[in-house]
């Protein structure tokens, strides 16, 4: 297991308040968008696909989903473009 699910030095109550605060006054639809943006921003910050995959599995396991995450298709190894400019 590469992902840390133990407690860290993070001020959890502050974090939780800030997270809920970040959604304040938003419609459900807007909140969904905020969450999607959060996932993408944090995924980039974590920047480790193995950790993220573990997180995806853990997140899904807490739902009523009856199937596992579908296996990944073969990996592309050729760069998608000589340099795909940022």
């Amino acid at each position, binding site marked *: 297991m590469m992902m840390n699910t133990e407690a860290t030095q993070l001020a959890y109550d502050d974090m939780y308040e800030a997270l809920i605060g970040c959604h304040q006054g938003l419609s459900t639809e807007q909140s969904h968008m905020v969450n*999607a943006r959060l996932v993408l921003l944090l995924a980039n910050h974590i920047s480790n696909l193995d950790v993220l995959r573990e997180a995806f599995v853990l997140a899904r396991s807490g739902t009523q989903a009856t199937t596992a995450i579908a296996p990944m298709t073969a990996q592309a190894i050729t760069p998608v473009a000589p340099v795909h400019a940022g």
Partner: protein
Amino acid sequence: MNPNDIPRALLEGSGEEVQALTFPYTRSPDQDASKPVHHEVVIVGAGPVGLTLAIDLAQRGQKVLVLDNDHRLSIGSRALCFAKRTLEIWDRLGVGQQMVDKGVSWNVGRVFFKDDQVYEFNLLPETGHERPAFINLQQYYCEAYLLERLLRLPNAEVRWGNKVAAIVTRDDGVLLTVETPEGNYQVDAGWVVASDGGRSTMRNLMGLESKGRIFQDRFLIADVKMKAQFPAERWFWFDPPFHPNQSVLLHREPDDVWRIDFQLGWGADPEEEKKPERIIPRVKALLGKDVDFTLEWASVYTFACLRMDRFVHGRVIFAGDSAHGVSPFGARGANSGVQDAENLAWKLYWVLKGRAGAELLATYGSEREYAADENILNSTRATDFITPKSEVSKLFRDAVLGLAQEHAFARRIVNSGRLSVPATLTSSQLNTPDVDVFGGRQVPGAVLTDAPVVLGDGQEGWLLRQLGQGFTALVFGDAPAWLAEFPEVFALVVGKDLVDAKGLLSERLDARPGTLYLIRPDQHICARWKQPTREHFSLALARAIAQPA
């Protein structure tokens, strides 16, 4: 064919003239023979893939017979985008320059979300390559130039209006029953290459399948003739105001023609959407009411990502769309088919000449099946991004697009098509693993990258143009004396035959004096050393044609 009999319109015709060309069925003496006449190589299907393969073989001196069930070239822009690697292959076959001269060269793509540009990308951000990342060229021009080139070669014959109706396979050949306007006849083929497209008759006759994923969406392609100020770039819109909730792709073609792909959704009625009264308002919404245009060609399509389990079936070999299909985002259809042809041509020729065994041909299958998987993976991912199939998939897609304007990382996730680059065949059994340490991307299995060079006569030239038609030993500094013991290998010595005046070649290959790269006939790197030895070289050469050392 007598050069005087080759229709001049193939090279010189306007789009209308080229599309109007018909190639009459003519009776072959084979049809009057008492028993089936033998042909070493029969290629079924005269599209870009079949024609490329036929040229490659005929240029090597191999007789080829091409059968096509039709009398015409392609209609409409269709494949349209031809990649740098495809142009390099056609350069080797003597037909690249016509394509580039006529085509619209481009390197830059722009992506828009609703009203705003999200980002732009350059597919060829460095200089020092002869060819651009892409040209746009109507498929009928591409086929016309390929056909013209083929008909100039003495070893090639094309039979129009010849449709394969039955196949009997043997261990050492294939008996084809061919249907013509004057009845059936039979051809005894040593090898058959089926390059007869996505709905391959050959595949059906063999009882084989191409399997995969079909996408539930419909797209309208329109070729529109107009004077417009858009630059020669690929423009892609997600959810634009003029075509809400769907995507639109714009490409410039030669002759003031523009190709527009409109996503329509699964509910669209393909017959209705093909009608000009449905298409014209869509185009006007994009261009504005006042732009004068005429509709040249339109088609409504759905697509699938499919492939056959295996491409080599004894003496019948599948290439191009018959073997694999991709969605159009990424221009990976015709481009991968042309790479199939180039991979197959030299291997088939080596086998026909007794230089290699069937093991080499088997690697056509393994290498190009791998490449097909890569193309399918990339095009499937692009399709899932462009046409999200669930609410949450659309939510994340829109979140990515929303973040992309400000945040660099999100631009890397935006996927309007990962545009065709040649597969790097790193796991090919024909490669010799490195023993020396090299930097850079030019690993065994990669296509040798182009670079500017100065030739012996002081003229500026390009590296890929200097390679041999067989194996090439690209040597930096003095060639080792033992290299002369391999007369079948073309020695190209940097510092003697050509000069790396800008240093780009050495840089791209991480080369120093003494470095040797072994290049396959299809310009893929198969081995390299910083301190080559005769023994290592000899082993690598055998390995590269799947021979026991």
